[in-house]
């Protein structure tokens, strides 16, 4: 019996299949979920994939937040369900107020697509325990609304409580405050990440296989694998 990890597809999601593939490669069972469904089908964890849900109309993630399944997800996340939001998924988590702050237009105003070096700053979350604190990994990043912002009080709290999960190294690709690439909620079960670990799980297609740790982390957490 392995862990069942749901991947929610919204209209405009792009990376749901890659996320499901990463879940499978880590040894868990991916469960496709459709945004208009009303139930999470008893999954043990959920990935909100990258893409452009609802065409990023209004604000990235703003409309997906009100999808029927999101009501269930927000309640389940408050009850401790592990949730990983990648790129557009991170934007949806911020719009849902499961994570603080917001993701705005890259300060360069350019769409950025590159292999990006990150430092794992918090290896104690449900999604990062396969890494070591301070470990550097290279995974793809691709976004135009990836500039993380929050007010100073929120930033101070994130920093002092260790809730910055990953930070950009060498180059800050989008102007994010404090070079923030990913954050988590207080309990550590909800993680939002702008780069794409699901695109770095196989040597054939990724710049590394160092993204797999996010998915093996959740398996460790759920089944002690």
């Amino acid at each position, binding site marked *: 019996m392995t862990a069942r990890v749901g991947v929610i597809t919204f209209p405009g999601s792009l990376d749901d299949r890659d996320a499901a593939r990463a879940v499978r490669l880590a040894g868990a069972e991916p469960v496709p979920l459709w945004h208009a469904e009303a139930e999470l089908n008893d999954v043990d964890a959920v990935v909100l994939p990258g893409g452009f849900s609802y065409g990023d109309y209004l*604000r990235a993630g*703003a409309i997906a937040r009100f999808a029927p399944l999101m009501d269930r997800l927000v309640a389940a996340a408050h009850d401790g369900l592990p949730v990983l939001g990648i790129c557009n998924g991170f934007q949806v988590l911020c719009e849902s107020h499961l994570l603080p702050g917001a993701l705005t237009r890259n300060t360069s105003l350019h769409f950025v697509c590159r292999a990006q070096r990150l430092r794992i700053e918090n290896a104690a979350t449900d999604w990062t325990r396969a890494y070591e604190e301070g470990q550097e990994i290279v995974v793809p990043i691709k976004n135009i609304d990836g500039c993380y912002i929050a007010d100073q009080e929120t930033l101070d709290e994130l920093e002092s409580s260790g809730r910055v999960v990953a930070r950009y190294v060498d180059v800050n690709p989008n*102007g994010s405050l404090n070079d923030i690439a990913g954050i988590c909620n207080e309990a550590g079960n909800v993680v939002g990440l702008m780069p794409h670990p699901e695109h770095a799980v196989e040597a054939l297609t990724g710049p590394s296989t160092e993204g797999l740790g996010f998915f093996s982390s959740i398996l460790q957490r759920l089944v002690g694998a």
Partner: protein
Amino acid sequence: MARFVIDVMLKPEILDSQGQAVARALPRLGFQGVAGVRQGKRFEIELDGPADEAATERVRKMAETLLANPVIETFELRAE
């Protein structure tokens, strides 16, 4: 028919990189003396019934819930 206009702007302390890009483009087009540009969004909402206080409250709720993200934006609302 009630008609409302909602202007949504980034909070002043939030970097408006799009507004800055517009500000940089204007002098290149020969428009001198531009001291600053902020870019926002305008929504026009029509509701059945009169533009009374209840209608205004409903539109305010729409703005708070969906049209603006209170983390980074403010909005102004008026009936037309």
